[in-house]
């Protein structure tokens, strides 16, 4: 109960009576809401105008606190979600690459078909396209090589995870290497920039084949490209599938430098995969362990120019043969 001094009682009564009548007015009067184009009771207009600043302030404070909590403090689920998204992004990148490869393949086959229609008299052999439909296993890099001259890493998957020797290890950005040693829970991967590594590759644009060989530096080289071949910095290099380890069409890297050599050009590549900062990789689980000593291996490499006639058998100096040989040099 509030005790009002006697002298101020008339004033208090005046205030009460006036306020009561103002409220009475406000309940009757309707004000045009210009934003909505219709009339609303004045009392509602007042109440909204009176309450909204507090609502806004409260909302701002709570959203700020909520943002602080969810953006800085409560990040328990963010990491797992981030990993999930990265993995999904990687899968999508791979899928995109596959589709790009398939589209390019279809384009080439269309051109071949056109050629076949125009020259029906020319004898042609259809070449089988090896699809990259291997299952994949995600693995994490858990260590590297103790030898500074050796470019190898260890991943947390082994024979118990169906990993076998000579399986391809890739990332969505590019190939990484191949499995060289397998243990029950760990595998060793030979990176493509190791001196003993070799990958069958080709230029994505010109489809010229070569071998990507490691040299111990961060930048592997594309070998067996003749000096007449026009190569530009930035040209994309993809796997050719001839080494029977990496499926055809996976990104290897881009040309970072090019100069004439004897007898082949000296082409350095910038690998697509961040070989020095690998964290998560994918192992392509082929159905059986690849035996690179199998004599039919080299001869089964498919030609890229079906229009040229019968499929050529790789010679000892052909890129496919060298790639297979290079891949077999490691145990």
């Amino acid at each position, binding site marked *: 109960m*509030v005790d*009002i001094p006697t002298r101020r*009682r008339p004033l208090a009564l*005046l205030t*009460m009576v*006036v306020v009561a009548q*103002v409220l*009475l*007015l406000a309940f009757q*009067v309707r004000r045009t809401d210009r934003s909505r184009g219709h009339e609303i009771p004045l009392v509602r207009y007042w109440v909204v105008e009176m309450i909204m600043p507090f609502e806004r302030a409260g909302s701002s404070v709570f959203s700020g606190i909520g943002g602080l909590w969810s953006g800085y403090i409560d990040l328990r689920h963010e990491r797992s979600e981030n990993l999930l998204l990265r993995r999904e992004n990687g899968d999508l990148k791979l899928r995109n690459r596959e589709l790009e490869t398939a589209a390019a393949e279809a384009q080439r086959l269309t051109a071949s078909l056109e050629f076949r229609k125009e020259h029906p008299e020319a004898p042609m052999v259809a070449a089988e396209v090896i699809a990259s439909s291997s299952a994949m296993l995600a693995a994490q890099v858990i260590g590297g090589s103790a030898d500074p001259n050796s470019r190898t890493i260890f991943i947390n998957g082994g024979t118990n995870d169906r990993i076998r020797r000579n399986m391809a290890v890739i990332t969505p950005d590019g190939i990484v290497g191949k499995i060289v040693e397998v243990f029950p829970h760990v595998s060793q991967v030979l990176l493509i920039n190791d001196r003993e590594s070799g990958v069958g590759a080709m230029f994505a644009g010109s489809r010229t084949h070569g071998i990507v060989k490691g040299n111990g530096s961060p930048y592997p080289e594309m070998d067996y490209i003749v000096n007449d071949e026009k190569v530009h910095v930035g040209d994309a290099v993809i796997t050719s599938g001839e080494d029977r380890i990496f499926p055809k069409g996976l990104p290897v890297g881009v040309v970072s430098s090019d100069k004439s050599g004897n007898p082949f050009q000296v082409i350095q590549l910038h690998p697509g995969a961040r070989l020095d900062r690998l964290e998560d990789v994918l192992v392509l689980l082929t159905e059986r362990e690849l035996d690179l000593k199998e004599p039919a291996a080299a001869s089964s490499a498919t030609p890229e120019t079906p229009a040229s006639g019968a499929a050529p058998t790789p010679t000892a100096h052909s890129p496919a043969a060298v790639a297979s040989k290079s891949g077999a040099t490691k145990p």
Partner: protein
Amino acid sequence: MSLAYNPGIQQDNVEVHKYYTGTIVGSAILAIVLQAFLHRYGHWAELIELPLLVTIYFGVSRRNPASGLLLGAAIGLLQDALSHDNPIGLYGIAKTFVGYVASSVGARIDTEHPLSRFALVVVLFHLHQFVLAVTERALLDRSAPLFTLHLFIDSLVTGAFAVLLFALLDRLRRRS
């Protein structure tokens, strides 16, 4: 919040007039009825606002701000109720202020002299108009004039009429 009404707050040196039972209520109702009745016979009736004069007279005579403002509020609300397009409370607010000010002034100065009555009515007429205009502008979004020559003439006519009316109403006082 509780508010106790205490009517005995007027100053001792000013005479408080009393009226027979029902005089104030009857006068107020008669003023409103007459105002509504005369309004039908032309605009000349608008020159004089009888409810305002009754509010001022009894506010000044009773010299009690609380009863003055309540009388003003009641008369104003009745006037609003009888009007065609005014929301209830428009005249009520204005006459509440007038009743309060009239009774407050009446408690401090002698308002028995015709000249002081005339001046007081003219001033309170404009106060009434001012509160009306402000209320209309603020709450009803109408453009009401605060002061015009026409209003000034009205106030003079009303003041002159009030001198006669108040002398008539003085006869309703109870002899002490």
